[in-house]
């Protein structure tokens, strides 16, 4: 039987009404836990895995896929509505999505996220099904020099997209880089900047920083504003559903996000956040409405959300073809597979095609269920914003702290949350952009570790960074992204450019 027939077989098996119900339960449970900020898909699956033990293999497999997709999707809902990113891959979603929600366009934002996730998940799962062995070969060619080059590209494109003041953008970025140095140095085991605090040994949790900066910092800023009546949040303005124009502006970002996210997810050390960063800056560059970025541009939600989901399917490529768990989520999925007697590895597709295809079919169905569950709920979700402010913000903070406490019930972690919240408030007050500090914390340690690994393997020879066409290409792209704006400005096209980079937050 060909791959297509096997997939069809899997789909037919999974389309049993009872199994569909399991998928729905899985998606609902996964979303319920996944919405908690700080609790990403990995922890969601880990928490709910025991639930799947109680079922027969087909049922538990499909429920498992549902929990996985639900956990992933849950994060973007809170990002958009409450400015509280549920996990690091939905931080970028909060940037534009929450601005949209405040203008009464929460409905379209949620819809473009849901449909974008679905389409990205669909395309990426199909790519996984038919091209996995080919893609994984390419992904393995990525060594530390190439990763370092990729990080440089991410740095340049992302920081070019932030803020109207170079000084404040850079300061925010460097504070993030500084936070990234805290903890045990991975390569030597030395402790940096922990000042004897055991809780700091593992570094600063990205979600703690993001939740504090976005949710707490903003609650404080809103509470501190004198004229509270001025800034009014409208729950719904215009249609709850996406307009024709929204569709027209969303479909390309969905596809581009998928194409960016999938390969990055397939790389053993890519990370879902990187894909969302690159997708966001790509959309900003390509948009016909660059002036809307920072004020709620739908492309800025559609692209990164698609990238996020596509990269999640991408991590399954090394997992299924090589047995490589390349992220926490993949590691926990591996544990899940073993429950079903599935031993991922290079021989899996050959030795156990039936299970692989039913897994892929389950993923497709769970993805579909997610859409079915979420689209009708959008109208309900956006009503959250009509809750009177005192209750709404009290609820947001309850929720933000619940996630932190659930992931790690320590006084110290809550203290950090509060400390970063106050920092976020002060930064808002003085016009510092918030996103670069989070980006710095994510990218800084990755760039450092890959540079040091590359140089260690080459025994201190810096030319190793230019040894492959891949890394040369990526570094050239990064250099161009840095230099071209300068040249354009010098040639008197500053007007266009400042508009391109015009971003007030």
């Amino acid at each position, binding site marked *: 039987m060909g791959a297509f027939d096997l997939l069809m077989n899997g789909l037919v098996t999974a389309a049993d009404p009872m199994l569909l119900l399991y998928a729905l339960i899985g998606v609902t449970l996964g979303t319920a836990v996944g919405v908690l900020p700080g609790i990403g898909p990995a922890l969601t699956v880990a928490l709910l895995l025991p639930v799947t033990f109680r079922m027969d293999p087909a049922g538990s497999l499909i429920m498992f896929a549902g929990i996985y997709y639900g956990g992933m999707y849950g994060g973007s809902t809170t990002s958009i509505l409450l400015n509280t990113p549920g996990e690091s891959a939905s931080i970028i979603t909060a940037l534009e999505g929450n601005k949209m929600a405040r203008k009464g366009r929460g409905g379209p934002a949620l819809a473009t996220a849901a449909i974008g996730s679905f389409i990205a998940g669909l395309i990426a799962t199909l790519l996984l099904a038919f091209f996995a062995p080919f893609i994984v070969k390419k992904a393995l060619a990525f060594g*530390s020099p190439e990763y370092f080059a990729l990080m440089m590209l991410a740095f340049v494109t992302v920081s070019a997209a932030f803020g109207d003041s170079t000084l404040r953008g850079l300061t925010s970025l460097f504070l993030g880089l500084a936070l990234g140095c805290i903890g045990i140095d*991975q390569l030597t085991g030395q402790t940096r900047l922990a000042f004897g605090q055991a*809780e700091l040994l593992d570094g600063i949790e990205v979600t703690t920083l993001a939740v504090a900066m976005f949710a707490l910092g903003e609650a404080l800023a809103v509470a501190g504003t004198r004229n509270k009546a001025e800034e009014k949040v409208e729950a719904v303005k215009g249609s709850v559903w996406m307009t024709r124009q929204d569709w027209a502006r969303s479909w390309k970002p969905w596809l581009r996000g998928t194409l960016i996210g999938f390969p990055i997810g397939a790389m053993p050390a890519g990370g879902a956040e990187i894909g969302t960063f690159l997708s966001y800056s790509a959309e900003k560059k390509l948009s016909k409405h660059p002036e809307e970025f920072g004020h709620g541009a739908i492309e800025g939600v559609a692209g990164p959300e698609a990238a996020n989901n596509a990269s999640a399917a991408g991590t399954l490529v090394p997992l299924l073809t090589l047995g490589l*768990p390349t992220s926490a989520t993949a590691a926990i999925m591996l*544990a899940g597979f*073993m429950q079903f007697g599935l031993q991922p590895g290079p*021989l899996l597709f050959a030795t156990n095609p039936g299970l692989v295809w039913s897994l892929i079919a389950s993923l497709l169905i769970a993805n579909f269920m997610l859409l079915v569950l979420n689209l009708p709920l959008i109208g309900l979700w956006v009503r959250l914003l009509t809750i009177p402010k005192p209750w709404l913000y009290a609820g947001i903070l309850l929720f933000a702290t619940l996630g932190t406490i659930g992931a*790690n019930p320590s006084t110290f972690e809550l203290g950090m949350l509060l400390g970063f919240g106050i920092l976020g408030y002060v930064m808002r007050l003085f016009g510092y952009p918030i996103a670069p500090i989070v980006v710095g914390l994510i990218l800084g340690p990755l760039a450092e570790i890959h540079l040091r690994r590359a140089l260690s393997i080459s025994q201190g020879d810096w030319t190793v960074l230019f040894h492959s066409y891949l890394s040369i290409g990526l570094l050239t792209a990064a250099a161009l992204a840095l230099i071209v704006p300068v040249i354009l400005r010098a040639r008197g096209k500053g007007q266009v450019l400042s508009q391109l980079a015009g971003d007030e937050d």
Partner: protein
Amino acid sequence: MKNFVLAGLLAGAMALPASAYTIIAPANPGGGWDQTARTMQTVLQEEGISPGTQVQNVPGAGGTIGLAQFAAQNSGKDDALIVGGYVMVGAILTNNSPVSLKDVTPIARLTGEYEAIVVPAASPIQNMGELVEKLKADPGAVSWAGGSAGGTDHIAVGLIAKAAGVDPTKINYIAYSGGGEALAAILGNQVTAGISSLGEFEAQVQAGTLRLLAVSSPERIEGVDAPTLKEAGVDVELQNWRMVAAGPNLSPEQKAKVTADVEKMVKSANWQEQLKTKGWMDTYLAGDEFDKQLEADTAATATVLKDIGLVK
């Protein structure tokens, strides 16, 4: 049948947990300790030893954060357990952790894995002897991919260098965060050799994408086509074991109760079945013998880490 399963699921979700063991997994979900804790949970529940067992992750710093928190909160309590292992022994030393395994009550060693040394299939290195020759000629030119700095893999490389007469501070060890990342670097031909638990490499070795050079067991392992390090002329033997411990200051009766429960779990057919599916070896060891083994391992690890230069 399916209706029954669903009803069971709902009933299970409704039932409130009874007072029972809380197992701390001092690591993120998905890793070895987490899986050990969750497997214990499953068996303790299904065998009716402790139906309401819960697992809690307290990740960080090679388990030392979880250990410190556990020791502080569970003095004299016989319903709290923590999973740990050999990596913790090293992490306590490298992190200067104020809390060590002396501050909890070790109950038993549960499972173990041996280390395996591999090279990519395309590598010119055919056997352990050639790798050692290369290491002797130019230690910097042999890059080793393995787990976190100061962990079992790093210690094993230090021991191999020492046994081969190479200065352990000169090894070119590249630490990766997870097994998957290190494996990708080896498969992608980025490094000379790789070292990790045998289970991590087994599927690749069978598929012929990696060449297994040696394993760190005392004797040859059944079904594994590779010599031990000793046979290959490198006098190193190392087991990456996992253990379970209870809180500090337990009364002898409390310790006996916990030990009895753990023994009951280990002896169950269910546990053996779980080990088999996960490819873990049963290296159960309890009581005084385990305490002695623990002490010996701690002393040996301290020496090696000093030799590598990670501990002063």
